[in-house]
């Protein structure tokens, strides 16, 4: 019985049960999930997230990183680490940094999003400055 299942399905009964349970939970949730708004919008954000990450964001940062690594050689990490951290902060907080939700944010909090661009730039500058200090200290020590 188990061998026949393996032949047709490619796994044992435990795997089959595990998959049934997982798809039961995800499938039931999916039914409600797609009704949370216009189907186009829900599907676009669910599928779009995969496409945007796997086929846009990932290739873009990989190519940029590879290009930079080739032209900079051994010093790449002093640039790579602060760039990555700064880019990540932007990726997370871009609506505040760019003021995309200014009206809603002001209505909710009574405050403005205008401070965030400056704060992000300041944090980024600090990250690059720390990296520069590390380079200088290491170069001096190596002498």
């Amino acid at each position, binding site marked *: 019985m188990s061998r026949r299942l393996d032949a047709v399905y490619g796994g044992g009964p*435990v795997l089959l049960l595990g*998959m049934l349970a997982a798809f039961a939970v995800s499938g*039931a949730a999916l039914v409600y*999930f797609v009704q949370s708004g216009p189907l186009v919008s829900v599907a676009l954000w669910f599928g779009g997230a995969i496409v945007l990450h*796997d086929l846009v964001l990932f290739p873009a940062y990989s190519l940029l990183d590879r290009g930079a690594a080739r032209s900079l050689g051994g010093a790449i990490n002093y640039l790579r680490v602060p760039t990555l951290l700064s880019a*990540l902060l932007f990726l997370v907080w871009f609506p505040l940094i760019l003021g995309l*939700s200014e009206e809603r944010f*002001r209505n909710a909090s009574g405050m403005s999003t205008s401070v965030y661009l400056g704060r992000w730039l300041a*944090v980024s500058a600090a990250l690059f400055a720390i990296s520069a200090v590390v380079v200088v200290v290491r170069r001096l020590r190596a002498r």
Partner: protein
Amino acid sequence: MNSGPPGLLAGTVAGSIRGAMPTLRSLVPEDPPAPPFRRDFWRSPLRGVRLTSILGATLLVAIPLVSVTGLLSHVAYNPGLGENRIVARGPFDVLLFDWPTHPAWLYAASQGVHVTLGLAAFPIVLAKLWSVIPKLFVWPPARSVAHALERASLALLVGAVLFEFVTGILNIQNYYPWKFNFVEAHYYGAWVFLGAFGLHVGLKFPTMWAALRKPRLSQELADTLAAPAPDPPTISRRGLLGTVGAASVLLAVTGAGQSIGGPFRRLALLAPRGGTSGDGPNAFPVNKTASAVGVGPDRTGASWRLELKGPAGAVKLSREDLLRLDQHAYDLPIACVEGWSTTQRWSGVRLRDLARMAGAADGREVRVQSLQRAGEFRQTTLGADQIADERSLLALRVNATDLSLDHGFPARIIVPALPGVHCTKWVSDLEFTA
């Protein structure tokens, strides 16, 4: 092709290219159609089962915490009471329970963890996806029915995890570039994720465990994540993990202060309620300004009356009437679903005293209505435990001064461990049910 040691499930997954597959296999060309589908296209010397296992183990701690605190927030909204429900009733409602009022910081802590840990986990999720991306281009696309189903569940897993993180992160910034209901999509999206996540952990745990416990052994195993012809390294694995860790810490440090408060709030430079909110007893954050919902001095002035209703009938009380009742003061946190919180000293009339006045001494429920005419959360229903708690107040003052208009003048609800949006501001009606 098997990537893991023979574990509980791992051994059964890959074993079969036999059986039903000849029909499927004849449909796909044997040679990869494009470079990414060839294993030697992937050149990073860092990828491998060890790196993925370290990232996976970290997420195995973080993701359940973020998930559980998220589900707790759903419970904290008391969707079973009155018109509180925002999310369509569904099969997972069996998990609901009465949200407690003890400890008072319960919601602040749980939602602070949900948001701050969620932010800190985001770079780890991205690194984890980077570490396994060659698997997206595996050839042939399916080796068996089980393998095809596993890949379908991975599409749900990756789609849902990105959806949850992206919508959650945009929500805390009040940015809604979509047409669906955020709360409902984020809640049911979480369950889509959890089904696929459970399967993924079940399938991969043995491999991860073996790779973490016996790093040498994992190198001897066929490592399907490792590049067969790697480029020379430009950063060590430790360097990569350190960078990912630094990214997590940076997001946590620039975010956590809005939940922890005190001097840490200044550190929360990029968080929506970080920095400062000025000086004075009413200088702490809000989630809804009076002007945004059309509540002005014309309706909150001397003419304002609280309509108190219950089995004993209806009475109208002015603010002076309420101030003449027994006043009580408590230090209580108010915590927003968006993750920030702040503890202040609130004073006012106990809800249970008002329940007694309304003829509902052991009040079962109270429906609270606001002067706010439109928009969400202009009414809420509180349960018996929340009415009975001595710290539950119709607050009139904060930090020994009158509430400001933005904080709910003339009167607002403050209940321990209750999500901020249910601590209704500008209260106009209280209707108790015995």
